[in-house]
């Protein structure tokens, strides 16, 4: 699909022209210390400060890390901006750890600079409300440009998320290169070594690191895995950060992890990062925390409610071609033209939009009519199990059910919500633990972390029927009826109890 790729690239260029218009990087005199709430004081280099100060990174201050989760967890107001800085800090810690272990000398100053840049820029392709906008231009748009790119080059993008693909193209763009060259030109009087390092930085390699593929033929793959791998700087930061700001206790003994890291290459052909046996426990912590974050934060019913509300609003803005702050959401990159301040202000001209935005501003969120746990499907009732599975797999069926429920109940919105599942197999099966000088095994051989996902799928998984306040009872009855019509028999008592609606049981 070269044409589609070219069009996509052109749209990225146009976006960056507009975004960076008027931005002139200034010469920064010396390194800067940035104090992070979790990670303390850390050094950032002058060229990084120029990028941090650029509109490309500053817009991430207005993109919350966990979308509207702060409406449920009040302190979860952290943004993609501080997360990006956190990933640089963790990437540097991994580099330092590997340098001090065997073969660490392979990480040259240029490679270090590139890894730090990949860490800093890895989320620059996130649109407003992070994954809530991503779902609109990726998952809910099966014929859209992101899916087209993934299908055109599955080796490169197959497992990449929409925002990673946007970050990749931003970093590879001509306009970004222009900005980069402008920045490094400020330092041509700096110590010669520093300037030489910057001139050797290759932005294509940086972009490849962002999507976790080999940076170039002469770079080992493990360098990219520091940014995007089974256990990477991104995960180390977001798990601690999302946990900390939501008030959840999700400690990861990162110091133990770092002293456990080394590069392992038993066959001499494919080096990879591994942890020693003492660090395996830390990988287990990462896995466990991921499950915890999903069950307690990301898939909390209120968080899901706000997520679905904002995602459906973005979808509506896109499909009805409404204009928000002079922008229409047509292509994926348009979701980067807006930020959360643009949308969540009270002065929207469009009345319909204003009413919907007001609900989010004032936290008038959808509520649970039904909560469906795995136990609500009877163990021996295969027809119900199969139909429920099929419903979950098919977006059009979910859409139809939502539409029918809303029409019959007379309310404007119903969400039949199947929250995302925590993906842990990559951490379990592709994180390597070193047992001896010449043996390393995947973590899953030492500890069956799949057991946690099995426990989660069997006991903690929840699906929701979410409705505006006042419609819970009507929609609960209707939904049970509609599920039954689709041959899905649910344990009514359990579904209502989990939705905290036991009063309905007597009626």
């Amino acid at each position, binding site marked *: 699909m070269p044409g589609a790729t070219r069009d996509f690239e052109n749209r990225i260029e146009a976006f960056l022209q507009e975004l960076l218009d008027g931005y002139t990087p200034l010469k920064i005199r010396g390194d800067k210390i940035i104090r992070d709430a979790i990670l303390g004081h850390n050094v950032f280099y002058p060229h990084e400060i120029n990028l941090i100060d650029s509109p490309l990174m500053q817009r991430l201050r207005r993109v919350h890390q966990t979308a509207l989760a702060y409406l449920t967890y009040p302190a979860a107001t952290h943004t993609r901006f501080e997360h990006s800085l956190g990933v640089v800090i963790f990437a540097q810690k991994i580099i330092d750890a590997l340098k001090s272990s065997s073969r660490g000398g392979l990480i040259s100053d240029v490679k270090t600079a590139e890894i730090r840049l990949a860490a800093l820029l890895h989320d620059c392709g996130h649109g407003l409300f992070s994954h809530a906008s991503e779902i609109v231009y990726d998952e*809910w748009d099966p014929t859209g440009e992101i899916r087209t790119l993934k299908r055109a080059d599955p080796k490169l993008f197959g497992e990449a998320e929409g925002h990673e693909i946007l970050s990749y193209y931003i970093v590879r763009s001509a306009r970004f290169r222009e900005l980069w060259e402008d920045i490094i030109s400020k330092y041509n009087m700096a110590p010669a070594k520093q300037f030489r390092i910057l001139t050797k930085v290759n932005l294509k390699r940086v972009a490849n690191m962002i999507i976790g593929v080999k940076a170039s033929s002469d770079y080992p793959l493990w360098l990219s895995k520091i940014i995007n791998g089974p256990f990477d700087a991104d995960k180390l930061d977001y798990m601690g950060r999302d946990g900390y700001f939501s008030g959840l206790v999700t400690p990861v003994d990162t110091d133990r992890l770092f002293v456990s890291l080394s590069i392992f290459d038993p066959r001499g052909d494919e080096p990879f990062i591994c942890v020693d046996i003492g660090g395996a426990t830390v990988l287990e912590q990462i896995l466990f925390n991921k499950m915890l974050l999903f069950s307690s934060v990301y898939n909390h019913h209120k968080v899901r409610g706000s997520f679905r509300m904002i995602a459906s609003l973005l979808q509506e803005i896109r499909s009805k071609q409404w204009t928000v702050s002079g922008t229409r959401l047509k292509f994926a990159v348009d979701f980067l033209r807006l930020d959360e301040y643009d949308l969540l202000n009270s002065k929207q001209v469009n009345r319909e939009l204003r009413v919907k935005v007001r609900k989010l501003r004032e936290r008038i969120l959808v509520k649970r009519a039904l909560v469906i746990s795995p136990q609500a499907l009877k163990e021996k009732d295969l027809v119900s199990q199969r139909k429920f599975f099929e419903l979950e797999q098919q977006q059009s069926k979910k859409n139809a059910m939502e539409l029918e429920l809303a029409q019959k109940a007379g309310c404007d919105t119903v969400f039949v919500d199947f929250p995302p599942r925590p993906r842990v197999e*990559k951490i379990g099966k592709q994180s390597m633990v070193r047992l001896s000088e010449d043996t390393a095994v995947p973590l899953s051989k030492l500890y069956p972390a799949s057991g946690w996902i099995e426990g989660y799928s069997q006991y903690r998984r929840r699906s929701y029927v979410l409705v505006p306040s006042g419609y819970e009872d009507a929609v609960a009855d209707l939904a049970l009826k509609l599920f039954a019509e689709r041959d899905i028999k649910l344990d009514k008592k359990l579904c209502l109890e989990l939705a905290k609606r036991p009063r309905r049981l007597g009626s």
Partner: protein
Amino acid sequence: MISSHLGRGKVEDSSEDELRLSDAVLAAFCFQSGRGEGKKQRTRLRVNAVYRAFAELRKKYPDWLQDMSFTYGPADTVPISGALEDILFDLGASGIMSVENPRYAYLKIPAFKLILIRKAITERRNEAEQGELRRLADEFDQLYSKASRKG
């Protein structure tokens, strides 16, 4: 605007009855036609071999399985696909399948469920689609046998 993220003005999209990734996974588990009448159905499948077999199967069905991409780890570790992981999770959460305790190395589907799901797929799909599903299941069967020797 009624309902959530529709906006496309259609209740049912045209892909309603197209073969999906989940059909491929169910067919691979349920048809096992290549095993012949005399052979026992597999009711236990090694998780790692399922991933390995699908990673190979994807190469043979690049169009149908195009959204099931795999990432390859170091040292011959199991290739992982988020899409496949999601489907296996959903099969577990809906009660169709479970993972065997305590090693969590095998997927379990009772024989009666395999038979009933196969019957349901057969009823819903036309001859040509059934043929496709059976061919895929045959390929899976062979790839799985090979992969399960790897562990």
